């Protein structure tokens, strides 16, 4: 599964560079939304066909929000420590980490401060998404199913959700979706907020 995913992304990148005409770049946003909508429709069917899941989630209660909270803290702590080790500003590093894998938004937000920071946010968060796609099947198998949500960050509700749902179960998939929604709504608030301290 991981290798198929990696090969598909690589094939896409290569055909983007060598085969498809540059005029297609404008319509890519539409096609990504289309692919995502199709995918989420099938993920929805999968979740819906497992009866009794919503009851289970309700029994977990507000504790379910511990997952996005810990992912948020871990992501920000991770880039801050890495940034300090690489001699970068801790605040700027923290802001890049607060993108939680949502590369388009964090990059746009941070490029307001500098092109370099915007590009770093883009590269960091797109790498996070690709590493998440490839590593999640292994994390689910060897570390834990709930932990498999962690690498995805904000993308736990869309692009990475099918991989999580395939590697774990419908129960974890719902927690994943909730995690993704919470983290996604935090990105537009947290990134500018952290940059206030720079």
């Amino acid at each position: 599964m991981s290798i198929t995913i990696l090969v598909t992304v690589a094939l896409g990148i290569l055909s983007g560079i060598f085969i498809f005409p540059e005029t297609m770049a404008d319509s890519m946003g539409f096609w990504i939304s289309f692919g995502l909508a199709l995918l989420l429709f099938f993920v929805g069917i999968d979740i819906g066909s497992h009866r009794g899941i919503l009851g289970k989630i309700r029994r977990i209660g507000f504790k379910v929000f511990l997952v996005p909270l810990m992912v948020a803290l871990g992501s920000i702590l991770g880039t801050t420590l890495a940034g300090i080790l690489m001699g970068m500003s801790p605040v700027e590093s923290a802001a890049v980490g607060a993108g939680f894998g949502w590369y388009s938004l964090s990059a746009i937000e941070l490029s307001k401060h500098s092109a370099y920071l915007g590009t770093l946010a883009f590269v960091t968060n797109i790498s996070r998404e690709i590493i998440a796609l490839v590593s999640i099947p292994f994390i689910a198998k060897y570390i834990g199913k709930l932990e498999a949500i962690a690498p995805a960050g904000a993308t736990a509700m869309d692009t990475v959700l099918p991989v999580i749902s395939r590697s774990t179960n419908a129960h974890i998939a719902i927690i994943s979706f909730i995690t993704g929604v919470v983290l996604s709504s935090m990105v537009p608030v947290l990134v500018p907020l952290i940059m206030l301290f720079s």
Partner: protein
Amino acid sequence: MNILLYIVIMIFGAFLGNRKLIPKVLMKKIDTIQFLCLLLLLFIMGVSIGLDEEVIQSFGTIGVQGIIFALSSIVFSIIGVRLIASKVLLKGGEER
């Protein structure tokens, strides 16, 4: 705005799945269909990365830094979730 559309589509799918409105033949293959849709999406995402020359160039200059950042956030996120996993998952352990 897209997020709202995605939620609606997913709830619609969940409704169909819950009411068993999807033919059994299709339900049996739902995993495969999901995976094929995912590959299609990843291919499209790859193409959009490949079409953007600026992105390709920026990977060359600050790629290593970005990958270290990404790995570090992932590792600490996993540790964070691990700390609370027993609180969130229900007893009985069928989810693990």
